C-alpha cells in the first residue's frame, strides 16, 4: 500500500480526500480503528448485475430495436454483449486489485489522475441518473399496461405521472427504509429468470418451427448494417449493470473470485437472454408489427404465445424488472456520489448519513431529484443513449487505466484476476467503447459532451488542487 500522505491537496472548501491505509481480506476490510464486513456473496453480486440490466433489454427495447434494425436487432444485442464483455474483463481485473466502493471512478482516478477521475466520477453520477430515468419511464409504460390488463385502460398519458410517482417513491423508500431488501432483490431476479427461461424456450422452439405454426421468414437485416450498429449504441443501456457490481466492490465477499464471476457472469446471462428475446419477438410478429407495439412490445409477444396468461406474466415481469433496475440504479448512484465526495471532489456533506434512518439522504436526494426532472422529459431513446454515452466514456477510460497501470506497475497493484488476452482485450475494449459512441444520435452525443465539459469545469473550479493518482487505501 502506498504512503497515505501522498493523498494530497484540498478542494475550494478546504476538504482533503479522506484516505486511510487498509488491509483487505476475503471477509473484511480492516482500517486503523474499525472493520468493514463484506456481506454480499456471489448470488448477491449476480442479482445486482442481472437485476439492474434485465429490465431494459428484454422489457423495453425489443420493439424499438426491431423497428430500427429488423430481426438483425438480435445482432445489435450481440454486439452490445461483446463490447460489454471486452470491458467487463478489464473491469474485473481492476476491481480485484482495488475492491472499493465507487467502481469505475475509483480505478480511473487512481490509474489516470484527478481530472479524468473527476470527469468520470461525476459523469457516472449523471449517467446513472439518466439510466434510472430511462428505467422509470419503462416502468411507467408497464404500469399503464398493467392497468389495461386489469381492465382499467388509462392511455399513455399517465406513463410519465406514474413514472414520476414511482421514482419519488423509490427515493423516499431508500431514505426511510431500513429493511434489508437484498433478499427481495435476489428473489425477484430468480423469479424473472424463471419466467423468461420458460417463455423464451417455448417461443424459441415455436420460432424454429419445431412446434406450432412455422413463422414467415423475414429478411434478416432489411435496413443494412449501419442501423445494426446505431441500434447497438441505443440498446447498450441494457448492459450498464455489470459495472454497478463494481460500485459495491467494497462489500463483496471473497472479491478476487466473486467480482469477476459476478460481472462477467451477469453480462453472459443477460446477453443470451436478450438475443433470444429478440429472436422470439421478431419470430412472433415480424419486426414491422413489433415496432408498432413500442416499449411494451413483449406483452404482445407473450399474448401471441400463451394467450392472456402470457400477457399478464410479461406485464408482471416487466413491472418487477423495471422496478428492480430503477431501485438498483438509485443505490449505485448514491454510492457513486459517496465515492467522489469522499475524495473531496464534491462537498463531503454529500456523503452525510442521517441519524434517524442511517441512510445517506443527501446522496439519495442528489440522485432522486435529477432523476425526476429527466423522467418528466419522457424521451426514452435520448435518456438511454445519454446514459450509455456517459458509461461508455467511463468504460473506455477504464480500459486505458488498466493499460496505464500495467505499464507503470506500481507496487500496490496486485490483482487476483488478470485479464486474458492482454493487451488486446483492453485495447479492443477501449476502441469499441469509443466507437459505439460514434453511432449515437447527434443530440445524445451533444448532451453527453455537454455534461462532460460541465464536470471538467466543476473540477477546475472546485477540486483542481486535489491529487488522487496512485493514492490507494
Amino acid at each position: 500500500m502506498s504512503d497515505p500522505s501522498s493523498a494530497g491537496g484540498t478542494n475550494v472548501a478546504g476538504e482533503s480526500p479522506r484516505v486511510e491505509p487498509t488491509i483487505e481480506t476475503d471477509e473484511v476490510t480492516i482500517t486503523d480503528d474499525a472493520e468493514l464486513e463484506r456481506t454480499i456473496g456471489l448470488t448477491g453480486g449476480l442479482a445486482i448485475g442481472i437485476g439492474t440490466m434485465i429490465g431494459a433489454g428484454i422489457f423495453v427495447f425489443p420493439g424499438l430495436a426491431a423497428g430500427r434494425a429488423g430481426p438483425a436487432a438480435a445482432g445489435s444485442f450481440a454486439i452490445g454483449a461483446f463490447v460489454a464483455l471486452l470491458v467487463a474483463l478489464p473491469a474485473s481485473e481492476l476491481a480485484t486489485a482495488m475492491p472499493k466502493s465507487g467502481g469505475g471512478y475509483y480505478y480511473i482516478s487512481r490509474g489516470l489522475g484527478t481530472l479524468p477521475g473527476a470527469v468520470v466520477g461525476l459523469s457516472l453520477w449523471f449517467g446513472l441518473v439518466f439510466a434510472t430515468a430511462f428505467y422509470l419511464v419503462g416502468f411507467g409504460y408497464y404500469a399503464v399496461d398493467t392497468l389495461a390488463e386489469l381492465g382499467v385502460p388509462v392511455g399513455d398519458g399517465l406513463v410519465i405521472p406514474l413514472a414520476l410517482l414511482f421514482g419519488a417513491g423509490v427515493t423516499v423508500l431508500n431514505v426511510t427504509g431500513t429493511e434489508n431488501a437484498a433478499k427481495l432483490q435476489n428473489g425477484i431476479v430468480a423469479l424473472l429468470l424463471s419466467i423468461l427461461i420458460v417463455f423464451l424456450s417455448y417461443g424459441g422452439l415455436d420460432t424454429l418451427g419445431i412446434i406450432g405454426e412455422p413463422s414467415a421468414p423475414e429478411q434478416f437485416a432489411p435496413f443494412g448494417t449501419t442501423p445494426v450498429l446505431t441500434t447497438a449504441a441505443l440498446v447498450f443501456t441494457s448492459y450498464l449493470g455489470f459495472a454497478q457490481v463494481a460500485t459495491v466492490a467494497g462489500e463483496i465477499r471473497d472479491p478476487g473470485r466473486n467480482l469477476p464471476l459476478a460481472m462477467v457472469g451477469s453480462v453472459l446471462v443477460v446477453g443470451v437472454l436478450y438475443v433470444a428475446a429478440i429472436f422470439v419477438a421478431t419470430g412472433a410478429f415480424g419486426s414491422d408489427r413489433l415496432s408498432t407495439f413500442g416499449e411494451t412490445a413483449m406483452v404482445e409477444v407473450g399474448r401471441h404465445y400463451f394467450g392472456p396468461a402470457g400477457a399478464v406474466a410479461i406485464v408482471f415481469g416487466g413491472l418487477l424488472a423495471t422496478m428492480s433496475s430503477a431501485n438498483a440504479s438509485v443505490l449505485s448512484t448514491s454510492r457513486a456520489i459517496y465515492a467522489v465526495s469522499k475524495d473531496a471532489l464534491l462537498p463531503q456533506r454529500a456523503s452525510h448519513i442521517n441519524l434517524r434512518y442511517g441512510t445517506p439522504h443527501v446522496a439519495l436526494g442528489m440522485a432522486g431529484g435529477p432523476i425526476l426532472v429527466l423522467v418528466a422529459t419522457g424521451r426514452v431513446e435520448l435518456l438511454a443513449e445519454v446514459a450509455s454515452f456517459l458509461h461508455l466514456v467511463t468504460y473506455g477510460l477504464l480500459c486505458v487505466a488498466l493499460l496505464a497501470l500495467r505499464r507503470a506497475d506500481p507496487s500496490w497493484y496486485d490483482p487476483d484476476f488478470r485479464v486474458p488476452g492482454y493487451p488486446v482485450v483492453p485495447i479492443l475494449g477501449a476502441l469499441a467503447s469509443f466507437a459505439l459512441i460514434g453511432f449515437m444520435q447527434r443530440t445524445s452525443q451533444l448532451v453527453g459532451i455537454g455534461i462532460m465539459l460541465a464536470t471538467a469545469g466543476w473540477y477546475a473550479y472546485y477540486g483542481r488542487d486535489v491529487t488522487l493518482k496512485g493514492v490507494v487505501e
Partner: protein
Amino acid sequence: MTRVLVPLAILEGESVSTGLPTLLATMDVTVLGYHVLPEQTPPDQARLQYEDRANAALTDLVEAFEAAGGSADHRLVFTHDRERTVDRVADEAAADAYAITGATGSVDRLLVSLTGDVAVDRITAFVAELVGDREIGVTLFLATDDEPGGRESIAAAADSLAERGLDVETTLAVDEPPLEALVEAATSHDAIVMGERSPSLRSFLLGEEAERIAAEAVGPVIVVREESADAAATREQGMDADRASQPED
C-alpha cells in the same frame, strides 16, 4: 485463558449492565461494537461519520471491564449482517462463549442449563473457570422427558463441579416445556449460562433460543459456543505437537 465475546449495538446505546464486568472478571473479554447498516449505506461511509464516537464508547466499556479486575479489548465493525459479523469475530478472537448483556447487579447465583444436545463437559468446565474461587452459587438445570437418565446425567455434572469446590444445586424439570421451565427457574438467579445449539426449524421460525431466553429472563445470558472444526483441529494438532515435543524434554 477463556475468552468471552460481548457483542453490542454500540451506536444504538446498548451497553453492559453493572454486574456483567464483575461476573466476567475471571475471563478475557472482547467487546464487539457493531453497527448494522441498511443496504443503502456503504459501511465505509458510516465509518467515516461514526468511528470516533463508537471507539470512545468502546474504550469506556473496556475500562469498566478492567476496573472490575478482568482483561478486555475491543473491536468495532460496520456491517450489513449482524449474525455474520458476530460469528466471524467470535472465530477470529477464538471466543469460547458470547454474552447477551442483560440487566443485573452483582451476581450471586448462576443458572446453568444443560438441556438438549449440548456439550455438557465444555459447559461445566466453562462455569468452573467463570466462578473461579468466588462465592457464586451454581444451579444446574435440565429439562427432560427421561427422568432416570436426566437425574443421572445432572448428578454427574453436579459432582464434577462440586469436586472443584463449587456450591452446586440441581433442578430437574420433567415433562415441562423446556424454555418456559428455564425462564421460570431464572427468576431466582442473576444470570444464565447455556450451550449453543445447532440451528433448527424452531430457531429459524422463532429466533435463536438464547435470544428468546435473554428477552424473557432480563438478566445476562452467556452462551458457550460449540467447538468449531478449526478449534478442534488446532487442539488436536497441539496435542500432537505436545507428544512430538516430549522426547526432546
